[in-house]
């Protein structure tokens, strides 16, 4: 415990019992509103999600509001489906690529923001916010239009710049190409949040500490390592863990960009897979089982970053 905290602890020990209880209950009171809201709204859905996963629950059962208990059948049927494993592998690779590109490019832009003149910074920030403010459904519509083979501006620009003859090129011809386009769209949409958050983090780096390090003779590299990065570390952990969680379960962009007419087992990502297998087919029991499996998997994927974040709290 630090000096100041010890002093406060000393003082609290001398205070009467009631005040001590009041003090101890402060953190619980602080988290109470969050707990109340989440339990009231999410409590039943979470319970339903778990119970549905053990039931045969299709459209007829939904209407009669009664399911048939089948134990682990939903889970075993999913885990024995080779499509599930192929989709899982594809999604893990996809997530790694997306997270890497998003965090990498976003951070580079944040550092760029620091180095440019004020007017460029305002322009770039405004641009980032414009990108960020586009609803995903609208962004997809614009992208579909820009990249369509018939008269998309992308083909036009590439042909005009003499990169090659891209007239009539179909960007959604192969699975790799489809998922590549989806990656481009998602990374583009996710960069603003990362860039602005990292930039906000950089702004939290206190000037005197930097100057103090400078006076001690540290170059920019050491300043980054000793002063900047410790401030940014929790932010990077958050951004990475959030990106993994979001990119693993992403649904809107792949489903709409590849198109509901072209998604099939050869290009499913987990978010699309759970939607089609569970909800499109109205097999809600199976959908719940896949959702829980996804929860488990994404927990495993992000455990490294999440544990770090949780441990950092304990050091306080």
């Amino acid at each position, binding site marked *: 415990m630090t000096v100041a905290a010890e002093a*406060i602890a000393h003082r609290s020990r001398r205070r009467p019992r009631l005040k001590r209880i009041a003090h101890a209950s402060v*953190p*619980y009171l*602080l988290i109470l*509103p969050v707990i109340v*809201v989440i339990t009231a*709204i999410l409590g039943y859905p979470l319970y*339903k999600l778990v119970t549905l996963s053990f039931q045969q629950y299709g459209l007829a059962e*939904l209407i009669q509001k009664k399911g048939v208990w089948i134990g682990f059948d939903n889970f075993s049927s999913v885990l024995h489906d080779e499509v599930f494993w192929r989709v899982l592998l594809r999604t893990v690779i996809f997530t790694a690529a997306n997270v890497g590109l998003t965090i990498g490019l976003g951070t580079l832009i944040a*550092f760029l*923001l*620091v*180095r*440019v003149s004020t007017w*460029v910074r305002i*322009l*770039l920030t405004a*641009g980032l*916010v*414009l*990108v960020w*403010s*586009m609803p995903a*459904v*609208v962004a997809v*519509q*614009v992208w579909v239009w820009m990249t369509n083979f018939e*008269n998309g501006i992308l083909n036009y620009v590439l042909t005009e710049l003499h990169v090659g003859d891209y007239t009539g090129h179909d960007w959604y011809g192969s699975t790799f190409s489809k998922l590549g386009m989806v990656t481009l769209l998602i990374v583009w949409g996710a960069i603003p*949040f990362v860039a602005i958050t990292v*930039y*906000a983090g950089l*702004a939290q*780096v*206190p*000037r005197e500490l*930097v*100057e103090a390090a*400078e*006076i001690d003779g540290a170059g*920019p590299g050491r300043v980054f390592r000793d002063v900047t990065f410790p401030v*940014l570390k*929790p*932010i990077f952990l958050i951004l990475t863990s*959030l990106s993994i969680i979001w990119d693993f379960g992403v649904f809107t962009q792949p489903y709409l960009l590849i198109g509901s007419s072209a998604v099939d087992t050869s290009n499913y990502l*987990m*978010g699309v897979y*759970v*939607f089609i297998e*569970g*909800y499109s087919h109205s097999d*809600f029991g199976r*959908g*719940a089982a896949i*959702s829980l499996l*996804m*929860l488990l998997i994404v927990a495993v994927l*992000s455990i490294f970053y999440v544990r770090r974040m949780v441990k*950092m*709290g304990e050091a*306080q």
Partner: protein
Amino acid sequence: MSAVSEVAAGAPPVARATPRAASIRRARRRRLRRAVWNVVGLGVFLVLVFPVFWMISTAFKPDTEIHSSSPTWFSIHPTLQHFRDAMARPYFWEVVKNSLIVVGAVVALSMVVAFLAAVALAKYRFTGNKLFVVLVIGILMLPQAGLVIPLYVVLAKYHLTNHLMGLVLTHLVILLPFAVWTLRGFIMGIPKELEEAAMVDGSSRLGAFTRILLPLVAPGLVATSVFVFITSWNEYIFANVILTDQANQTLTVWLSYFYGTSRATDWGGLMAASTLTAIPVVIFFLLVQRKIAFGLTAGAVKA
């Protein structure tokens, strides 16, 4: 210009007597470096913003230009017709009002509630701290598709379907875990020395925390509130299911009617409507963006 950028530009912290020629050379090098970064920044801007530019440019093009075989960067005969058509669509102003109400309530409530919880998690040692953190993350990891129908059933029980309050609560539930998790991270990033240096004798711990932490975490709070604003503003899946009456819907659901018909999509109208949808977000961001860069240094320097 922030401290970090000054350091990165290689400015010496202490003035020294140097020959004039050398200092002029140094200044010129600095300006050159700055100019190079500016060019890079502009390039990044152009590439990043292109789809948005394309959307806005299309909104001003008459239909003949939109459907012509050779694309044009800027409209030859710009028109405001699409904007007028979009605003004349049924329920446009009701929908704008609804979106503003929902997002306003969600941002205000979630920031206050999440900040308090994040302070508790980051600064207090209590049993259940770790469990609560894990719970928060667990909710973040839930795939939303599975929750839509059970959530609708819960709202139906409370008679909150087709009601803005139902959507506000749903958005809170989706966004609180994120806000708590992120703010906790920002709070933990505040260097200890700054906190302790500002601790005043005799004040309660919570009071000290809020009075000292708030200005320090302001940039993080703003970034998080912008995210909450944008996510709530653009949220579609739950808004679509919960709000069935067009008079009660939000802007994103209203937008879906442009391309949800089985007949031809009105591209010009959709692009104009999308542009209109983006405006409040940009305004909100412009109002709060100062806090991100300049919020902290004030607090730090006073100490």
